[in-house]
């Protein structure tokens, strides 16, 4: 049995060429992400090729399908960093949200990973359904002994946007969560690094998506299409190049898709004259399009955005029935900003 579409996938040889081109271009990291990268039977070979090209290799995986033998092979190929996602500390809840009985396997896998000399990150996705026991989840992650944990709020793209009402935390949950993370960060300093991503809906200014369009990241999909970000295919009037047709360097430097939102000339007001434009680049293009219908618009997550009302109404819905004070919430919001300012990072693979 074969999944539809695998024939259009890049071959091992084609990937090897892509990694070599990336290394020559000055790229530093290769992230193997998905979907599920373990679905590539030649993953070990690809990791080895990326390393040979001078790239730091990172495998982002659910861990499903990774047995001891395959793990050993990946480590033998010199994998630098492995990142396993957990959905919860409670097995039943984790399996429910994942839609698979994967939790127990992930725990075993984490123990196996610690036998190797490799950087290990646990990724924890938090949302309305699990935030109330964040402390318990952090305590659980401590038992897995990773070098680093990413506590990432669900970001509302794709299915998460369709299920936003069920996933969006209340303001109270977010504020408590930020305080819990700040405490854990202090307590675990030197032992475990915590990177937290707060939900941009509650932020005053939008996230610096991808560190700027066409500034840091190229995403190459299984069939060789090159995207400036994971979600870019939702944008209208975009066409993307393929590594089968063009050198990677040309795509990075010259292609229309990478030029489209690079720099500041594409910006409309209020971004164009805003002091924050060099920090957040007007936010996320995909979110701007998904929520306002215009790819060039200021990300509605920004409090200065003309379409910020769509965020406000989502927040009102999410906080309806809670005792959160509207209007007077300003001071607590500022506190949230201050506490989380140091924690602001953007996860490069929003899922």
């Amino acid at each position, binding site marked *: 049995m074969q999944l539809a579409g695998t024939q259009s996938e890049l071959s091992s040889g084609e990937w090897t060429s892509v990694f070599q081109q990336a290394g020559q271009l000055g790229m*530093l*990291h290769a992230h193997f992400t998905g979907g599920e990268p373990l679905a590539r039977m030649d993953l070990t070979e690809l990791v080895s090729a990326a390393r040979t090209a001078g790239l*730091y290799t*990172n495998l982002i995986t659910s861990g499903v399908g990774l047995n001891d033998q395959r793990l050993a092979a990946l480590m033998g190929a010199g994998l*630098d*960093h492995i*990142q396993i996602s957990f959905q919860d500390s409670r097995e039943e809840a984790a399996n429910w949200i994942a839609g698979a009985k994967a939790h127990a396997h992930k725990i075993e896998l984490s123990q196996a990973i610690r036998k190797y000399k490799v*950087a290990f*990150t646990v990724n924890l996705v938090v949302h309305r359904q699990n935030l109330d026991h964040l402390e318990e989840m952090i305590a659980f992650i401590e038992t897995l002994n990773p*070098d*680093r944990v990413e506590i990432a709020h669900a970001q509302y793209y794709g299915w998460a946007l369709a299920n936003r009402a069920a996933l969006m935390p209340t303001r109270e949950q977010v504020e408590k969560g930020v305080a819990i993370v700040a405490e854990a960060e202090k307590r675990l*300093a*030197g032992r*475990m*690094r915590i*990177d937290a991503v707060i939900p941009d809906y509650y932020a005053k200014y939008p996230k610096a998506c991808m560190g700027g369009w066409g500034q840091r990241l190229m995403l190459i999909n299984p069939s060789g299409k090159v995207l400036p970000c994971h979600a870019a295919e939702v944008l209208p009037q975009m066409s993307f190049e393929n590594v089968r047709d063009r050198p990677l360097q040309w795509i990075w430097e010259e292609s229309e898709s990478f030029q489209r939102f690079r720099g500041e000339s594409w910006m409309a007001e209020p971004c164009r004259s805003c002091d924050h434009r060099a920090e957040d680049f007007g936010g996320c293009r995909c979110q701007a399009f998904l929520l306002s219908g215009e790819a060039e618009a200021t990300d509605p997550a920004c409090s200065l955005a003309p379409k910020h009302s769509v965020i406000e109404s989502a927040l009102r819905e999410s906080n309806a029935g809670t005792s959160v004070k509207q209007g007077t919430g300003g001071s607590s919001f500022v506190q949230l900003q201050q506490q989380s300012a140091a924690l602001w*990072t953007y996860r*490069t693979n929003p899922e």
Partner: protein
Amino acid sequence: MVLYPEGAIKLHGTGREVLERCDGQRTFGELIAELQKEFGTTDPEKIRGDISGFLEQLQRRRIVDY
């Protein structure tokens, strides 16, 4: 250049001198002593303080252990 999960640091000068000596063999004390000798004109206590602070930062990012 030091590459680590989701990041990279380009090291110059003294930072590089320090990290090149983090070889899994030298102790913290030996490393300090070597650099105090090498930068003999600088106050040894200042050297110790600066290096401690630098390594602590790197440990927080889980780049070194000591």
